[in-house]
């Protein structure tokens, strides 16, 4: 795919008000099942799950609040999931 636009660039189109003091999603970094991790990495539209050298890293900044990671991981990779606090997170202007 020659003209693939990086997801990071796409997140740049949006308005975010990231809550630095509260992570609305928490992952289970001890969870090591690669197949489950692979699914969550492929699933997140914002590509926030990064799996490198056997380590899964996650940061909620740029989260589109869809809930896909929670549903796909069935409580395994994602330890807890909530909506961000009011006014926090993404603000869609189109929708």
């Amino acid at each position: 795919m020659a003209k693939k636009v990086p997801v990071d660039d796409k997140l740049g189109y949006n308005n975010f008000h990231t809550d630095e003091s509260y992570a609305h999603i928490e992952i289970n970094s001890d969870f090591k099942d690669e197949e489950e991790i692979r699914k969550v990495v492929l699933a997140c539209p914002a590509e926030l799950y990064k799996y490198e050298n056997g380590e899964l890293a996650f940061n909620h900044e740029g989260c589109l609040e869809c809930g896909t990671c929670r549903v796909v991981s069935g409580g395994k990779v994602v330890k807890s999931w909530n909506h961000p606090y009011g006014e926090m997170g993404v603000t869609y202007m189109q929708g």
Partner: protein
Amino acid sequence: MSEEKFDAIVVGGGLAGLTAAYCLAQAEMEVLVIERGTFCGSKNVTGGRIYTHSLEKVMPGFAEEAPLERKVTKERVALMTEKGVVNIEYASGKPDTPETASYTVLRSKFDKWFAEKCEEVGVMMVPGIRVDSLIKDGDKIVGIDAGGEEMYADVVILADGVNSLLAQSIGLKPELKPEQVAVGCKEVIQLGEDVINQRFGLEGNDGLSMLVAGDPTVGNIGGGFLYTNKDSVSIGIVATCSDIGRVDVSIPDMLERFKNHPSIEPLIKGGLPLEYSAHLVPEGGFDMIPKLYDNGVLVTGDAAAFVINLGYTVRGMDFAVESGRLAAEAVIRAKAADDFSAASLAYYQKLVENSFIYTDMKQYRNFPKLLERHEIFNDVPEIADVLFDRLFRVDGKKPVSLPMFAIDEIAKRTSASKLLELVMVALDAL
């Protein structure tokens, strides 16, 4: 505020919640809408095309004034392979009535407008606050807790969408299963009104709705969509969560794949991307509908899984609106009897059962089973592609008879028994 008690608290200012609140306020009830977004619509994503019939009942003539995008006059359904496409285009040409019309819509703009309409009729809107939990008194829901602040009401209407953590928290519904939901991933790309009219063969305020099966999801259950807005297009993919990982292509890459398809790329070329969004779609259908009420609480819209996805039409918004209206009707009746028990609110369930929500969802009850068949997303677009290629390619060599060629191509991909099985599932689903 904590001293005050409302007639109703609505959690979620999407279409379901706003409709419920609008109807309640019109019946002179004191109603509060709590929305976690900065404004109503700021968290909401749809495809989208709204079928107006249900909102027309609530607010006759709303389409005249609402910020709708374009009136859908052209339907396109496409079967895609990696490079090829079979398009079917349909324009009925028949005039629409306000009840049969449908429009493309951008929810951040639409819901914002709708919230203003609600305020005009006396709804109290509280945006920017997340409801953390429901307050119980014995076995009855009596209010909500938002960041430690408690607010009370005779009834709480849950209109908090597909990720209804609140309905889950009180055991009305279980956690979503991967096969029951799809993730939608979307971009809004600005092209300008004239460019849209030229590229899609449209005039004035006419619009196109396009739904695609096959390549965008690399044969996974799901598909692509494209809707023309006034001066932008909404383009995206919807992919069932249980299929994620079946192929090595990520959700964001499926969208890129769709955008770069030879038949799509020229349509969006040179556009200015305005937004990138994602949202879940409940697709489990009739069998996914949870219990809709309990003591002091009702569930509406996506939270109640009121969506049908048939591939060529997606409906959730008209259901959300209708369920909001019916919830309001049940609450008005409960208020008259001063009885907000489960037995009284069961009336809502009855209203839903007698509405088009149930009839339509029941009719397509087995459709999710049909969509589970990967043949539809893999083999059908491929077979269509080779057949059309055969039909239109002239190379001066001896032609093969088309029926024989078709039988051969189908046989390559599936057995007679599998084909028969698919036909049986399809008959059952439709």
